[in-house]
């Protein structure tokens, strides 16, 4: 099994006719994702690669029964697109867009209160349950079906970790990019909770970075509620304070949000913190084989 997406997931792509949306729709479909619809206002009735296109998400849901959305809409319209998907009853919304204003995301978080929807991202590579479904921009072929869950604030660094695992023959249940922005939908704690209850996941890798307190919160959750082992890597031990390291959310402000603090909090909670980004695959491999001996 897996979390968030599986072979029952039917995806509508918002912004399917844009450059990114078009390219990744093809990639997702080629991976085996059931892309059932696209939305592009004003372009209804012009199928895209055989996929029906609608003016609104509501139309797409009514006609195709889509239950997940991939948002490839430009930053200034993206928050609106996320809300539209949720209003139309989409349960799982994956927002790939980078550069959405923080206050727009605050409005989204307000809007979704009390709704049965979950948001992944924005500024995320997406989510993939290898072998079943990929909603995002990651390369499918580096993944392998398996029992390790991964959750991360980064894109290419996640690919790096997945690659290390796959090359050691360790497959993944689901990989969830929670996104690199300051205000996001699902956080590490939410994803850890899902992995803890997922029968298809034996262990979890967290890939965190400087800024905010998502890692500290994850440490707190682990200590109180988790039985499965967790391994963590935190990027940015060499990052200078006060500078935004690429991701809008990756900034050490007022001495808070440093890699040291996060590593300390995770370690204290009993999570194995790997200092070497090249050694994450080895660490997971050692942990899994150690557990088998017991």
């Amino acid at each position: 099994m897996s979390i968030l997406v599986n072979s029952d997931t039917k995806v509508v792509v918002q912004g399917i006719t844009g450059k990114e949306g078009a390219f990744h729709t093809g990639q997702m479909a080629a991976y085996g994702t059931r892309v059932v619809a696209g939305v592009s206002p004003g372009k209804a009735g012009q199928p895209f690669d055989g996929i029906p296109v609608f003016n609104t998400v509501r139309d797409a849901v009514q006609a195709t029964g889509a239950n997940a959305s991939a948002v490839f809409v430009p930053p200034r319209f993206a928050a609106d697109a996320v809300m539209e998907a949720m209003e139309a009853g989409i349960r799982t919304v994956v927002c790939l867009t980078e550069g959405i204003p923080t206050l727009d995301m605050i409005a989204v978080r307000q809007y979704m209160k009390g709704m049965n929807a979950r948001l992944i991202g924005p500024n995320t590579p997406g989510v993939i349950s290898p072998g079943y479904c990929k909603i995002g921009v990651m390369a499918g072929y580096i993944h392998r079906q398996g029992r390790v869950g991964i959750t991360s604030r980064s894109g290419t660094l996640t690919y790096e970790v997945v690659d290390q695992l796959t090359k050691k023959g360790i497959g993944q249940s689901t990989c969830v990019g929670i996104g690199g922005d300051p205000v996001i939908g699902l956080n590490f704690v939410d994803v850890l909770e899902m992995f803890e209850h997922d029968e298809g996941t034996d262990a979890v890798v967290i890939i965190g970075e400087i800024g905010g307190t998502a890692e500290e919160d994850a440490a707190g959750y682990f200590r109180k509620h988790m039985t499965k082992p967790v391994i963590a890597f935190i990027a940015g031990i060499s990052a200078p304070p006060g500078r935004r390291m690429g991701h809008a959310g990756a900034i050490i402000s007022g001495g808070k949000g440093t890699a040291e603090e996060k590593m300390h909090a995770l370690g204290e909670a009993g999570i194995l913190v790997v200092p070497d980004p090249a050694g994450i695959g080895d660490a997971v491999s050692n942990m899994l084989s150690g557990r088998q001996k017991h």
Partner: protein
Amino acid sequence: MKIHEYQAKKILQDYGIPIPRGQIARTDEEAMRVARQLAGGRFVLKAQIHAGGRGKAGGIKVIDRIEDVGRAAWDMLGKVLVTAQTAEEGKPVRTLLVEEVLDIAKEIYLGVVIDRQKACPVILASAEGGVEIERLARERPDRVITETIDPAVGLRSFQANRIFYGLGLDRSLAQPVMATIIGLYRLFIEKDCSLAEINPLVVTDQGNIVALDAKVTVDDNALFRHPEIAGLRDISQEDPLEVEAAKHNLNYIKLKGNVGCMVNGAGLAMATMDLIKLVGAEPANFLDVGGGATSQMVKEGFRILLYDKDVKMIFINIFGGILRCDTLAQGVVEAARELVIDLPIVVRLEGTNVEEGRRIFSESGLAFTVASGLADAALKVGEIAKRQVL
């Protein structure tokens, strides 16, 4: 985006928050003219730079006699100010804010920030103004008042009320202080701020409320709807290489080391810097050429790295995934040829057609050290760094 104190104060004024009387000056003559217009006895000259910690670094000077203003301005202008919050190179002082000196009875802290986890704005206040709020929150959390704002309904009167009474001020100040709180919150929302701070907000001996110092930082992602703020950018406060990189949509931050690195994706770029440090060398920069790096972006990245004279070797770490490594390798080789790069280059490329990509590097006749995997790359960077750099 950071803006100067005088620009922040102008915005505060637009929102009805009182600021000291004053004007900016870019020459000593202008400073004298401003002082004459202000009249009164004493003046303060404040260096306008994009960093805090100015007071201790000599960036804020109180002048007792009007005839000394020109001389003091002359001394400050054109200098580079190094404070606890700047890099070693400091920030150039091109503009001074010349203001009246106020008789201060009390200093208050007032700020609005975003709580990332709760996804809402938070107002922070403290009766102990003038100090660093982060330090105060750490050492004396009981002295910091926190009001979480529901963005759907905005700041409510009872909350402004609660902050005011929490500050323990004289009741006669209720109206001006609450108006300041409400104004600052409105400004924060309407200007898409990530930080709006008055530190200190002072009560003068005459019982007036004045924003003595202010800091406003605007969300870069929201600048498209605030052209009036985008126009306030002062590139003299930014590193020239960073300005050049930004023109090409590259995310670049200059650091102190000498191993230049070029990576796709911010997280991997940070991890690559960490790795360089782990093998005993120092990264010269953070450079993210974008998650979907293209040959063109790699070429622009190369140029930026070569402009940095501290760079003694280069480490390229691209996890392309969907990108074809052969096309990318071709681009890297061409760029290296064109730019005549004679520094050692360790390259690690991952993605579709990776074998073909590696072959292109080894057959290029250029000094590429091709690594397979991150661990191997780290080893190779470490070896070359020991020989060439350290």
